[in-house]
């Protein structure tokens, strides 16, 4: 086996055939056992596996000291011991993968309506889109922190409203939602699609397109 003349073992000549290994060697043993064990190991189990005469508790104390301030620590869990990564390095135990997905069309349209009409109730969004808005879409936008709840509307039922957030403005490089270009500008910029998008009609948007306009930002379009 290996010798460790260093460390604190200033052992005299072996007095017995069954002399326990030097404490540094015992420390190595504990280290290896704690490392390889699937679960925390009780002191008596450690000692049972070590050669006769070993003092697992003392070796553990040495080992614990050795790992102080290191990337891993010797920790006590109940009456058992284990090696664990240092808590301040927990961030390394995560591997972040960033996946970029295109926002769904429903989400974009909902977001657009909120941006142009804020504060805007769910019923208003549905009225403008002509289809019902799924809870998931709103939740997704809330989660992305692109929209948040605004004041309740002073209409019967006092429905909640949605408004866009500073994060939204930041993401789209807008100073305020008022900076969103109006329809005329969109048209002038050639941004209007000339044909109804495929499926737009088949989605069965119904007749209720002619309801009273939500107020809010819509006046932007009445130029």
């Amino acid at each position, binding site marked *: 086996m290996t010798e460790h003349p260093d460390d604190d073992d200033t052992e005299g000549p072996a007095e017995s055939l069954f002399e326990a290994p030097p404490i540094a060697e015992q420390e190595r043993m504990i280290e*290896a056992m704690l*490392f*390889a*064990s*699937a*679960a925390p190991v009780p002191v008596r189990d450690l000692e049972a596996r070590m050669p006769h005469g070993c003092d697992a508790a003392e070796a553990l104390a040495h080992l614990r000291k050795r790992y102080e301030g290191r990337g891993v620590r010797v920790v006590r869990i109940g009456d058992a011991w*284990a090696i*664990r*990564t240092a808590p301040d390095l927990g961030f390394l*135990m*995560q*591997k*972040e*993968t*960033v*996946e*970029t*997905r*295109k*926002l769904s*069309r429903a*989400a*974009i*349209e909902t*977001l*657009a*309506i909120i*941006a*142009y009409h804020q504060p805007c109730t769910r019923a208003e969004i549905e009225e*403008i*889109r*002509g289809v019902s808005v799924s809870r998931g879409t709103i939740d*997704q936008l809330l989660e*992305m922190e692109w929209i948040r709840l605004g004041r309740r509307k002073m209409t019967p039922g006092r429905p909640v409203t949605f408004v866009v957030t500073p994060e939204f403005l930041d993401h*789209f*490089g*807008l100073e305020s939602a008022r900076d*969103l*270009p109006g*329809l005329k500008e*969109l*048209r002038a910029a050639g*941004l*209007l*699609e000339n*044909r*109804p*998008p495929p499926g*737009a*009609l088949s989605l069965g*948007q119904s007749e209720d*397109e002619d309801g009273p306009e939500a107020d809010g930002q819509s006046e932007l*379009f009445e130029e």
Partner: protein
Amino acid sequence: MSDNLFQEDPLPVAERLAAEALIVDVDGFEGPLDVLLTLSRTQKVDLRKISVLELARQYLAFVERAKALRIELAADYLVMAAWLAFLKSRLLLPPDPSEEGPSGEELAAHLAFQLERLQAMRDAAARLMARDRLGRDFFVRGQGEDVARIRTVTYSATLLDLMQGYARIRTRDEFRPFVMDRDSVFTMEQALERMRGLIGFAGSWTDMVSYLPEGWGGDPVRRRSATAATFAASLELVKEGHLEIRQSDTFAPIELRKKESGQ
């Protein structure tokens, strides 16, 4: 008697015993090369200095004995025997300069190389398996802390997406022409509905044109649609047996009358 037997077998006793042991064990061998390698050990020399001639002799004796003991050897053992017999003759006879192909020495050298290489690989395999091995001599971390995979999904949308999305919704009215076309379309269903209510009063032959709905006679587009729908509806009613239809001449007015006999 024993003399006779002895003369039949020119091999020394030790070798003969070795050959017999080989034969008993023939199933345990991995082919002729394996046997040759085992035989070569009886020469107790470095494989590089082995006498291939001697080895060939030993192998041929091995095959002979197997035959004598009526032990069936696989074909490749016999192929090897034939090849070694050929090699032996090449090695024994003085080289024939007119002969093509490699010399006996070259062939023998290659065989020696093969044996040496096989032995080397066996030694290497043994050394490999004797190494400290994972899960036996050294160990992995018992309680791995799995790296948590944090998948962040970022959704991308550009200002353009946003504006186009909005424009798409807000300008749907402008696409209405497509829908509003339907204003100029009088459907067969509508015509049928209308006709069913009217035919009760059609006791005598009446020009189909008079059944066109109000306001559909002026605009040519609307009139065409209404006429076609009314005509189709009329045919449908004829088929159902509620109506009679006639046309006196090509392009003459189409006339309708309630069918009396049916009901």
